[in-house]
């Protein structure tokens, strides 16, 4: 019996030792000469590592960039780390502003306002205003967050359409004159259909990109105020302007503007199709420049705004900060971390990142050395907006219903009116839940 007990306790001890060893501690560096950064940008890991070596040579502080991709997996990792209090010194928040607000309320993100405002706002003035706006909470915001800046943009982006100039020539179109109006786009769609080619490709199997284009046209057709009023519940989704927005997708599908299989397409597939010259149009972000360069350096294409469906209001595209970094509020290295981010967003480092990764810099002074195609994306920044700067967020269930509804319109299952009714029903349900 004694031997049995001895064996048993031996086993239990080993078991408990293994469990305790597996329990992680805080990931943010306790030592002041080390900074940990978690990111999701697969195209920038090499460039980040080079910058980290440069910074270590300059300051003696070791910066560790850890890549976790794809972005969905990264978001989950950050969320789990926040729950387990194991966030690194620097990380990013992907997704909606309400998630950003939740992290701030949970005490996970440092308020950078004092650093931004120091020296008469020297650091703040380096950035494009729209890039900073995505990381700011304005006074009286609906999230209940104290006014201030909580993130640092490390690049900017716009999401637009791109078109293949060689395929334009094949269709008998002027490659330097992309469609400026929705009607022109529809006419081109008919030519695409006749020629048996593929029209617009995009990752609409991932739904958020559908939401993006729908919002762009919503702004163009009804203006920003009415879109925000809809989000606030003051205008129903059954309003004729919303039906018009939804009808645009039906028109695009019927005319041949949209490629087949769009609703099950992930963005990587769309990028491959466009890069290989198999699609006339694509709807993608400015990060695509680096992607297309890697897939097909000889691709002859241009960027364009989504063709406007109305002259009443300007076309709006999503843009602003592309990727941003936040500082862990519980980091023991806060001052060093902020110093590193200041260095990372200086002109020299931003020029290097823009050249190495073909992404638009967040530093205004670094824009001179971007490629012509990237400059086309940058030129559209004046038209940019972003849900994260509107001050209000739509209910996730409503966004999901709208995006899936548009997918249903594209596959010919539902009419714009049916989708509008279904979305409004969900909106009313969510509003009732909020009131109760």
């Amino acid at each position, binding site marked *: 019996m004694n031997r049995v007990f001895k064996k048993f306790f031996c086993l239990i001890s080993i078991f408990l030792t293994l469990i305790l060893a597996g329990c992680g501690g805080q990931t943010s560096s306790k030592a002041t000469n080390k900074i940990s950064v978690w990111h999701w940008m697969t195209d920038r890991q090499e460039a980040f590592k080079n910058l980290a070596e440069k910074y270590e040579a300059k300051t003696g502080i070791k910066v560790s960039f850890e890549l976790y991709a794809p972005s969905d997996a990264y978001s989950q990792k950050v969320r789990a780390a926040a729950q387990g209090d194991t966030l690194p010194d620097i990380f990013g928040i992907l997704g909606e502003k309400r998630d950003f607000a939740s*992290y701030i309320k949970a005490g996970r993100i440092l308020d950078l306002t004092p650093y931004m405002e120091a020296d008469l706002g020297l650091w703040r003035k380096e950035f494009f205003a729209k890039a900073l706006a995505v990381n700011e909470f304005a006074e009286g915001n609906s999230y209940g967050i104290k006014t201030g800046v909580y993130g640092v943009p490390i690049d900017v982006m716009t999401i637009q359409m791109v078109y293949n100039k060689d395929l334009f020539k094949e269709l008998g179109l002027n490659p330097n004159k992309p469609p400026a109006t929705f009607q022109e786009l529809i006419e081109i769609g008919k030519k695409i259909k006749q020629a048996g080619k593929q029209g617009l490709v995009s990752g609409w199997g991932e739904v958020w990109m559908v939401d993006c284009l729908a919002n762009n046209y919503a702004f163009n057709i009804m203006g920003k105020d009415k879109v925000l009023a809809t989000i606030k519940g003051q205008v129903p989704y059954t309003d004729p302007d919303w039906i018009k927005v939804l009808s645009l997708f039906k028109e695009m599908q019927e005319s041949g503007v949209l490629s*087949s299989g769009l*609703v*099950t397409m992930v963005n990587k597939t769309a990028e491959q199709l466009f890069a290989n010259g198999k699609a006339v149009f694509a709807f993608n972000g400015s990060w695509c420049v680096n992607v297309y360069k890697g897939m097909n350096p000889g691709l002859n294409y241009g960027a364009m705004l989504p063709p406007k469906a109305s002259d009443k209001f300007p076309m709006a595209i999503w843009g602003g900060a592309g990727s941003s970094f936040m500082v862990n509020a519980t980091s023991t290295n806060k001052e060093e971390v902020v110093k590193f981010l200041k260095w990372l967003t200086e002109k020299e480092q931003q020029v290097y990142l823009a050249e190495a990764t073909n992404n638009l810099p967040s530093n205004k002074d670094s824009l001179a050395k971007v490629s012509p195609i990237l400059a086309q994306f940058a030129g559209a920044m004046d038209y940019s907006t972003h849900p994260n700067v509107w001050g209000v967020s739509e209910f996730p269930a409503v966004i*999901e219903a709208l995006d899936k509804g548009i997918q249903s319109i594209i596959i010919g*299952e539902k009419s714009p009116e049916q989708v509008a009714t279904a979305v409004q029903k969900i909106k009313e349900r969510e509003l009732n839940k909020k009131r109760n």
Partner: protein
Amino acid sequence: MKIKSTLENYLFVIPAVAIFAVFYIIPFIWVFRLGMYEWDGISLTKTFVGLGNFKEVIFNDPSWWQAMWNAGYITLIALTFQNILAFLLAWACDREIKAKNFYRVIFFIPPVLSEIVVGMVWRFIINDIDGANIINRSLTGMGLGQFAHSWLNDPKSALTTVALVHSWKGFGWGFLIFLAGLQTIPRELYEAAKVDGANAWTSFKNITIPLMVPVVVLVAILTVLGTMQAFVLIIGLVGGEFAGHTSVPVLRILASMRGSSRFGYACAQGISFGVILIAISFIQYRFSKKSKA
């Protein structure tokens, strides 16, 4: 002495029970508890809603039941087409045929492949836009061009296509278990039946099938549990929920966690799903006990 012996037995069971409690029972209770809160997974505070989330899942979420229906459809294809195929192939490999060892290896390759790889490879094989379009080309080559179709991009055929690819990936497990079951049937029974004048079909009907019932039930339970939880293959094949047509419960749970940031609701969905699977398994088990009796 008897007490000592009993204690000794329990001593060796305790670690397993402890592991089961720590990694299954306690998390189940914890997730159930989280399901009673409205929580975004990040905030330090949660709002207690009682059984509100569970009520919403059961009575007020049509997309959840659409997902359950889709998963049920894929499971039905798996229970019939997949398992019948697995059984027939196992039966063939149990007999004295040429290269049976080679077939045993080949048939077990699909289950060991990664689901996302299988999804992406089959998407390449099937898809007419961004793939090799092999199936449609084969149909056209055989003079059956009228059946060529956009299998993954048509809402009417997407789910069935997913179910068939899932069956291709999954039949290897059933094949292995059926083969093991067939090999436990004493050969003497077949020889005795042969001596008594039984033909192959009679032997199959009166010996093989009755003795394989427990194995069939086991495979059925494993098929239901595994197939109802499928989702990675769907992401590889069609990118996601395809306007609800390829939506399955796990994708709905992920959408609640990631898209809606409703962790509490996702937990309620998970618990509800778990309870349904336990109920189905229990019914299958009771059915098998009755069949034995």
